[in-house]
């Protein structure tokens, strides 16, 4: 190798080595700076968290001093307070929650939430809906309902959850509309209707009764029936009985049967027994499960006759229902030749041994 080429290679090597050292040094600096910033941010978070907790739960003097320290924060510093406060809000109730809502409202958080709901960005609209839901003010319902028909799923879902948090029963029909339009919202709508509580049940009953008359049932009716069952609403038994007996769609009949099982009234035994004797496995399964939950021994003959006569999922549900009936049901299973009877008994013995 000639001398100039060797010198060139050496220079290149030195340059590369120098660059590598610079790169490592830069990485070390970036990492150290990032760790420092993270530690500072964590300290700020902890400090804000401490002030919020003192303001909410501290002794009167401690609380007043923490409130004063929070109120003097402005701009970015206040936004960090607001972020933590909104994260805590849905997790608490009682006077602690009231105090946190006051803290946020006094600092103009509600106005900022409304402003967010009018933003072009779907993320900001979602944040606004979340904040309005967390503040729990019924005056926010019209704004939330206006946001509901959006084509952004994230916004729709946040609005549904927010309506559940605000707990205004007037929103029930619109929540049912939302699930009619978008099946992906089923779980969120059920959770929201559960959060609204017993005040939602008259609206759900009315909706279900109308759907039966109008012969439009399906998903919306099934959801209304499910939630009525989850609320254990005894006043809904007549409309649920009617739904089991004559709804056009099997999904609604099945949901109504399940709801009657959740409510657990003996008045439902006759219609559930009739449904068990039908020819729709989806409905028969739910009717058998419901009879087991109601625990009425008057259903024993119908359950015994149904065992071994239907689809395998029906047989299994019937055998499990007989187990739930206790002594008489267990005896019927002992005497039955169905393999599902033997399976249910074996499972029962295993569970008892655990």
């Amino acid at each position, binding site marked *: 190798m000639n001398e100039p080429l060797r010198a060139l290679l050496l220079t290149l090597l030195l340059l590369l080595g120098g660059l590598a050292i610079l790169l490592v040094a830069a990485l070390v600096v970036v990492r150290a700076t990032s760790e420092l910033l993270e530690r500072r941010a964590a300290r700020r978070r902890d400090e804000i*968290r401490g002030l919020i907790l003192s303001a*909410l*739960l501290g002794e009167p003097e401690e609380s007043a001093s923490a409130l004063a320290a929070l109120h003097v924060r402005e701009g970015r510093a206040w936004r960090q307070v607001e972020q933590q406060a909104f994260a805590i809000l849905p*997790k*608490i109730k*009682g006077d602690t*929650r009231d105090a946190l809502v006051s803290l946020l409202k006094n600092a103009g958080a509600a106005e900022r939430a409304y402003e967010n709901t009018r933003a072009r960005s779907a993320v900001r609209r979602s944040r606004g809906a979340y904040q309005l839901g967390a503040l729990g003010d019924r005056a926010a319902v019209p704004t939330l309902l206006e946001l509901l028909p959006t084509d952004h799923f994230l916004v729709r879902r946040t609005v549904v959850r927010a309506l559940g948090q605000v707990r205004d029963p007037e929103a029930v029909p619109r929540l049912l509309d939302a699930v009619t339009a978008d099946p992906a919202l089923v779980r969120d709508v059920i959770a929201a209707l559960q959060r609204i509580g017993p005040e939602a049940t008259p609206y759900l009953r009315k909706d279900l009764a109308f759907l039966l008359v109008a012969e439009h049932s399906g998903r919306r009716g099934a959801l209304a029936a499910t939630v009525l069952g989850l609320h254990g609403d005894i006043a809904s038994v007549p409309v649920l009985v009617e739904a089991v007996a004559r709804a056009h769609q099997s999904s609604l009949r099945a949901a109504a049967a399940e709801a009657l099982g959740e409510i657990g009234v003996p008045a439902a035994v006759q219609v559930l027994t009739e449904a068990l004797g039908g020819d729709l496995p989806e409905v028969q399964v739910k009717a058998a499960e419901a009879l087991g939950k109601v625990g009425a021994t008057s259903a024993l003959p119908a359950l015994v006759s149904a065992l071994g006569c239907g689809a395998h999922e029906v047989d299994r549900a019937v055998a499990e229902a007989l187990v739930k009936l206790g002594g008489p049901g267990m005896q019927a299973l002992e005497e039955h030749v169905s393999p599902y009877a033997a399976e249910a008994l074996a499972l029962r013995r295993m569970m008892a041994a655990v």
Partner: protein
Amino acid sequence: MAKIVVADDDADIRDLVVFKLQQSGHDVVPVGDGAAAVEACRDVLPDLAVLDVMMPGMSGFDACRELRSDPSLAGIPVILLTARAQESDIEQGFNVGADDYVVKPFSPRELASRVAAVLQRSGA
């Protein structure tokens, strides 16, 4: 003053519970999951454990079952803290040996009262 282990993977809730119980004069050991709660109970033998039900890894139900199966820890009273409010969940909580049950969203003041009541019952 009682020694209390508090287990919740949600830092917001854990901090609230810890603050409230410390304010009531208790010595609190905070942890983030069920396995750590059982370990903390072995280490400090607390007068009470407040366990969240839904935690990663070992749930509050499992942690409670674990405590009840160990003769040296079986006597520790347990309060379960959970978002699951169905009757069957509450029944399951009592079946695994919990002494009380607080449903989220919760009132810190109510939790402190329940803690006081359970400690009084257990004579701590």
